[in-house]
């Protein structure tokens, strides 16, 4: 039995741990050590209906909020699995030593976007880093026992496929190029596609999108690529967007724009119930709308000056330090300028409820997989989705791993040429995507982008460059194909939601050099 995990962020760590706890060995392959993964950058928290705030929170409400936040595009069975396992997952993280705050009821939770109850467990605004640290330590235990074998500093090369089945994975040392073929089933946990918007996201530079582009070229289906999350509160710093955690608003931060010279707390006026904590797609679209008005200035501010000093010290000290360090503004004393920035990819590798892809014995989990978040992800659900998804993928791989055919020999182990996307082309692709896939989209801009990307597909490109262009094209064409507005995909030319025609999953595949688009029904909810 052999299971290989590509990526050692939270989803990969979770998958490895799930296997090790069942005494099943695995290989954990990663471009860099887990400390460098994008998961460490997650800030605000992880959702679970623990009901430690006396608000009678329930799994049903977490489930309902997640589906509503995703504008009813997520697989309801999968979301139920996610939400119903969340309390047990967070409790386990607590036992693994994540330093959550506690009170006499248990783990303290905070408010977060799109949820009416305090459901987000946190460690200041460094939750991702704390979770990763605890899981690294736990995985280390099994490394020493010989159950988990790490391959750090390795890049994914391609799957070994045989007649539609995944037989293993080819990897190579990043520096020597030394190839290794790892036979067995494969769990992809390679992170989101930040590299498609190079330098324009809050994400890691390691998440180039190249692994997903390679998988796409090998016949792996992708889904819902048009749903790209713009987080409402980011700041441009050298080389990237800096995230200002949703925890800022969860703890009382308020968004305003100056209208006729006076602060206008537009979210509070327009959404009296959830106010500044509407789902991210709604907040970002409102920020675009108010800054476009003639009577408003073009800059939105996040006002955290009303937050209690004790809250700053115990829950947001790291966020405060970050603002002072990067933009030289002390948010305790004055509002900070914020604008929406690309933060998360709801779309990715198409998986079913069990995290199976369209290729036998190939699984995917974490941000690279399209699951749980529908058209818009709620804050606090990504850490949960990574850990739960990694676990489910590992369980599914275990179910299949006894099959004889996986033990078949993998045929070859040769060094192949390695290509990378040139910085110049990466920049051109990013510029086209950024221009054509803003918060408010339209057909003309997207059609122009499709033309531009097609024109870039010239014979002199290397294989990696072609693959990235095909992935970019798949994203733009998925966006053109969805002629409605839903969640993070908002169109000025189709402003309404159209459930009849588009409450469906976009599916994109690559065959014989052609990108094929279809819409697929969302699985029916089973009765509980």
């Amino acid at each position, binding site marked *: 039995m052999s299971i290989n995990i590509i990526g050692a962020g939270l989803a990969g760590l979770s998958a490895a741990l799930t296997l090790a706890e069942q005494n099943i060995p695995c290989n954990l392959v990663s471009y*860099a*050590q887990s*400390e*460098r*993964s*994008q998961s*460490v*950058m997650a800030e605000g928290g992880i959702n679970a209906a623990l009901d430690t705030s006396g608000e009678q929170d329930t799994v049903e409400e977490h489930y309902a909020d997640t589906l509503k936040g995703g504008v009813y595009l997520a697989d309801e069975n999968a979301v139920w699995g996610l939400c119903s396992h969340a309390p047990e997952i967070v409790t386990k993280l*607590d*036992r*693994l*030593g994540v*330093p*959550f*705050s*506690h009170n006499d009821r248990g783990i303290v939770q905070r408010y977060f976007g799109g949820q009416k109850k305090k459901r987000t467990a946190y*460690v*200041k605004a*460094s939750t991702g*880093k*704390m979770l990763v*640290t*605890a899981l690294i*330590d*736990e995985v*280390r*235990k099994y*490394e*020493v026992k010989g159950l988990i074998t790490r391959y*750090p500093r390795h890049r994914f090369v391609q799957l070994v496929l045989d007649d539609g089945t995944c037989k293993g994975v080819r990897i190579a040392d990043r*520096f*020597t190029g030394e190839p290794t073929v790892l036979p067995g089933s494969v769990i992809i946990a390679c992170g989101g596609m930040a590299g498609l918007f190079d330098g324009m996201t809050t994400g*890691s*530079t*390691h998440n180039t999108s190249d692994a997903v582009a390679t998988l796409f070229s090998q016949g792996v289906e992708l889904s819902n690529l048009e749903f790209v999350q713009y987080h409402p509160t980011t700041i441009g*710093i*050298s*080389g*990237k967007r*800096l995230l200002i955690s949703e925890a800022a608003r969860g703890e009382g931060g308020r968004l305003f724009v100056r209208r006729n010279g006076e602060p206008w707390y537009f979210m509070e006026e327009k959404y009296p119930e959830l106010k500044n904590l509407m789902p991210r797609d709604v907040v970002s679209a409102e920020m675009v709308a108010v800054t476009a008005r003639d009577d408003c200035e073009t800059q939105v501010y996040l006002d955290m000056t009303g937050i209690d000093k004790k809250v700053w010290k115990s829950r947001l000290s790291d966020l405060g330090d*970050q603002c002072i360090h*990067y933009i030289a503004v002390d948010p305790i004393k004055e509002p900070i300028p914020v604008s929406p920035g690309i933060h998360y990819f709801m779309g990715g590798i198409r998986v079913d409820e069990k995290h199976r892809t369209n290729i036998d014995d190939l699984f995917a989990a974490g941000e690279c997989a399209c699951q749980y978040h529908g058209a818009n992800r709620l804050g606090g659900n990504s850490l949960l989705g990574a850990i739960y998804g990694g676990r489910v993928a590992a369980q599914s791989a275990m179910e299949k791993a006894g099959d004889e055919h996986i033990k078949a020999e993998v045929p070859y182990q040769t060094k192949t040429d390695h290509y990378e996307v040139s*910085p*110049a082309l990466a*920049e051109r692709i990013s510029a086209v995507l950024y221009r054509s896939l803003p918060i408010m989209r339209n057909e003309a801009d997207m059609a122009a982008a499709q033309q531009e990307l097609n024109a870039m597909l010239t014979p002199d490109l290397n294989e990696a460059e072609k693959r990235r262009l095909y992935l970019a094209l798949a994203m733009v064409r998925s966006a053109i194909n969805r002629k409605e507005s839903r969640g993070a995909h908002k169109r000025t030319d189709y402003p309404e939601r159209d459930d009849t025609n588009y409450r469906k999953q976009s599916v994109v595949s690559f065959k014989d050099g052609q990108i094929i688009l279809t819409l697929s029904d969302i699985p029916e909810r089973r009765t509980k």
Partner: protein
Amino acid sequence: MNYTIDILRQENRVAQPYRQTVHFATDDAEMTVATLLKTLNATPDLTDTDGKAVSEIEWECSCLQKKCGACAMRINKKPQLACDTKLGEFKDGKISLEPLKKFPVIADLIVDRSVMFENLKNIGLWLEKEARHTKKGEDVAYEASRCLQCGCCLEVCPNFIPGEDFYSAASFVPSGRVLSELPKKDKADILNSYVDKIYKGCGKSLSCRDICPAQIDIEHLLVNNNAVAVWKRFLK
């Protein structure tokens, strides 16, 4: 502002190192060394001050906001993160970039920090039992969990020599979490290795405290760890 950037280069693990100097002009004092390196690598036909072609400068980064520790290097001889160092700091326009010295060079500014991760295995840094949470323990565990494993502390530690018995701050900082969360009777293994691999070798120079890019309260963690592991003053 015109910058002169002197880079210590080395093609691979066994190649001879050499120096290469490039000029770069920008008025952006907020630009980080990380963005500078990215920009240089994206410059077509980049040449050095002798007119020779400059091949891609190998360096590592991931988060670009001092959360991952990937881009640690010696910048004007001081170990720090490239993403946390702004060009405006170099008033005379002179910047020298070198790989960390205590680790084997893989290529240019990338070093092999495997020893740090091996050391964490050797001291047995994991929980054998369920964590026990206390208010004080939470604060210690938080601070300890922030360690980036960047290696800057090892670079300046007068007592740390890779491959030798003293593991230094990159091991004792993360140890703080496990030491604070394990009940007394379950600490035995890590306590033994702590005394051997950390307490005995530390000369208390605390150079690690001053260099840590995450500004972890290393002194506090060291005092706390020693109290638990050496002086047996177990946290309540």
